[in-house]
């Protein structure tokens, strides 16, 4: 057990040190990413103004709060891309990984968790600028901030396991790209990334509640911008725990089956 803790801390620290060196690259990436929520925000603020100030239960400054917190949640949501598996398998990197005594999942999880620490640090100045420009209605209580911190990492875990498992499909077919694209589109529409789900028709909201996407994305945002009561937040964190466990289970099952299909050539 203490070995595992040291393993995680070691890889996490490595990720932090490594990513701190690539500050410019990280910032380019983050700025490119910020265009997306800013566009949504401007569009929906325009709509809200046309309707006399409110759309889908959001006033203009509440929309701003939604999309500013969006940027942090989106950064936390970035995990190992499922496309990585193609490379790992083709290059033989995986063959080397399998020789190690520790499941490769641990290293990925530790590394991305460490990277997230850097992402949060680097996000702070961006948040300051966005707040200054868009004047969001953000006034969270201490409890909300604490619960937000939990929900943020909950979202990270859900998406980490979901995409890790999704990537394993690469063991069966090399034509995964179209499949991944479909997954990402469904996620875009049903997670609250494109618009807050309250702007969607009722049936979409019902469907979204039954899928994991929303719990990784819209839910953490809503904990901080004050649209949920403490009870709802705790229930939501319960849902996150449920989806994390489901993801972990799926990962374990699929991993064992995919390994049976793996043959290394060279390495």
């Amino acid at each position, binding site marked *: 057990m203490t070995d595992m803790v040291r393993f995680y801390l070691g890889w996490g620290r490595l990720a932090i040190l490594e990513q701190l060196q690539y500050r*410019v*690259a990280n910032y*380019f*990436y983050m*700025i*490119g*990413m*910020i*265009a*997306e929520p*800013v*566009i949504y925000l*401007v*569009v*929906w603020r*325009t*709509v809200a103004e*046309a*309707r006399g100030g409110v*759309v*889908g239960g959001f006033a203009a400054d509440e929309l701003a709060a939604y999309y500013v917190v969006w940027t942090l949640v989106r950064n936390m949501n970035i995990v190992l891309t499922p496309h990585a598996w193609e490379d790992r398998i083709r290059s033989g990197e995986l063959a080397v990984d399998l020789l190690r005594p520790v499941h490769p999942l641990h290293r990925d999880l530790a590394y991305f968790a460490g990277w997230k620490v850097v992402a949060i640090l680097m996000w702070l100045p961006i948040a300051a600028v966005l707040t200054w420009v868009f004047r969001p209605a953000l006034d969270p209580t201490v409890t909300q901030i604490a619960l937000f911190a939990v929900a943020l990492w909950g979202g990270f875990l859900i998406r980490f396991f979901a995409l890790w498992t999704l990537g394993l499909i690469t063991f069966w077919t090399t*034509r995964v*790209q*179209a499949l991944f*694209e*479909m997954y990402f*589109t469904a996620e*875009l*529409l049903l997670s609250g990334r*494109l*618009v807050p789900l309250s*702007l*969607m028709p009722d049936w979409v909201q019902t469907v979204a509640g039954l899928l994991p996407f929303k719990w990784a994305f819209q839910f953490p945002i809503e904990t901080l911008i004050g649209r949920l009561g403490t009870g709802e937040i705790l229930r939501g964190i319960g849902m996150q725990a449920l989806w994390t466990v489901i993801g972990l289970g799926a990962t374990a099952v699929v991993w064992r089956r995919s390994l049976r299909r793996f043959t290394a050539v060279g390495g």
Partner: protein
Amino acid sequence: MSFLRLALAHFRVGAMNELQYRVNFFIQVVQALLALTTGLVGLWLVFSQTEDLAGWRPAELLAVMGVHILMGGVVQMFIQPNMTRLMEDVRKGTLDYALTKPADAQTMVSIREVRIWSMVDVLTGAIVLGVSVTQLEHRVGFGDAAGFAIALVLGAVMIYCFWLILTTGAFRLVNVENILELFSGIYQAGRWPVGIYPGWMRGGLTFLVPVAFAVTVPAESLTSRLTTGTLVTAVVFTAVLVGVTRIVWRIGLRHYTGASA
């Protein structure tokens, strides 16, 4: 004339190369359909809440979306692959091969690569545009159509210049993947008419990253909003940008030293 022959020859080689990878065509179609779906859902959501967005009616915004997809296809087909290749060549030192050819170097590096499967996006954009034109409340006159064609070409030239300047500047700065990320992020802004953005963003989207000229202006022409003044500005700005690009390219080249290929 020799420029056209050269471009055509490269186009043919590129096309034959890509035609070997048919699955990519399938992937491109899936991607185009998914992107189209997302775009339509976005439009539908907006217009389920309001009747017009900053003065643009649904069919008119559909036209903006059509131009956006079409121009995106053109960029991915001709501009982006060449710039990626240029960056790679600089890094590996293989740019020497292009520089030692007797043709003009800037021309050479700009026509070497073609991704014909991106034609799918060009076609999708054209179809969306066609549909939107039939939905418009007024008829598109000859002047509108001509203005549209001119604005579209000018827009493509401006984006090309923008890319070449960035890539040349990046001879020694950042790697191209980051620029690509940045551009595709900002290009998304063009899906909506730039008039909806706050002033400082509109300025950036017009003169820093010419998304406004590449997407909004052609769409303005189709929807009879284009003033002669805007079109003249576009012509002048394109001319200036082409000149500046040439100078930046020359300077960049002077600093390039082959890394022995």
